[in-house]
């Protein structure tokens, strides 16, 4: 069930939600998305191109953020627009990492569309910038 516009107000905070990410998560994401770049799976390769370790797909992080938004809306099909910049990488050591995702309602239109500003951080660093979702409420 999608959330009703009458139950939403500008300034409402969503989360934070802490999402774990392991090497197994990235293998699953690589297979599901088709992005098999080895920097997301192979530690040795990642280091050989100057990265500190394996890093998460930026699109995995965007996907995890979309899940937080969709769960709040109550129907994933109501996420009409979703955009972001990738501002920093999520380093995923062998024992895994965590991404913290939160959002805030910034606007609410008469037609029931809400604009959310989404924040995602890893190790205290913002990994998504200007991340905005437009969702259609009931």
């Amino acid at each position, binding site marked *: *069930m*999608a959330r009703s516009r009458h139950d939403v107000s500008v300034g409402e905070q969503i989360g934070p939600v802490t*999402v774990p990410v392991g090497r197994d*998560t990235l293998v*699953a*994401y690589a*297979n*599901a*998305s*088709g*992005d098999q770049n080895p920097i997301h799976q192979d530690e040795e390769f990642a280091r050989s*191109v100057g990265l500190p370790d394996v890093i998460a797909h*930026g*699109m*995995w992080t*965007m*996907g*995890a953020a*979309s*899940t937080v*938004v*969709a*769960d709040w809306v109550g*129907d*994933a*099909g109501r*996420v*009409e*627009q*979703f*955009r*972001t*910049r*990738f501002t920093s990488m999520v380093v995923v050591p062998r024992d895994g990492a965590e991404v913290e995702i939160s959002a805030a309602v910034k606007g609410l239109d008469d037609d029931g569309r809400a604009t959310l500003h989404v924040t995602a951080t890893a190790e205290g660093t913002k990994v998504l910038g200007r991340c905005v979702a437009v969702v259609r409420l009931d």
Partner: protein
Amino acid sequence: MSVNTEFAGRTLPPAGPFAVDAALIAQFAAAVGATDPVHTDAEAARAAGYPDVIAPPTMAVRFEQQSQAAYIEDPDARIDFSRVVHGEQSYTHHRPIVAGDELTGTTTVTSIREAGGHSMITLTTELTDAGSAPVCTAVSTIVVRGGE
């Protein structure tokens, strides 16, 4: 050799069709931690008003990137993929992607900009269904880092 700016403005031949099925949607949903039953339970999806299970909002990337591949991999485009990082991404869904869709992706090289020794390439991909109706407009900016 830097990126070939002559590609700016070009539209690639349509890619696909890409078949979307319930198993692929369930696999993608699991990978991004999406537990909304509209991704895995056809009854729940129909109760929400969809003809079948729907894709999570960012699953369009799978078809978008396949639609971009002919450009990214074209030797004449001179894109060193080992130097590519993802800069920006946006999705505008005209409707959710649904199991049973046969998607076609048409990518346009919207712009190629050079700044600070890097190349920023913006690609717009229109995903359409078997009836040629718009499903998703995907815009991505990739950054090709300059050589040292």
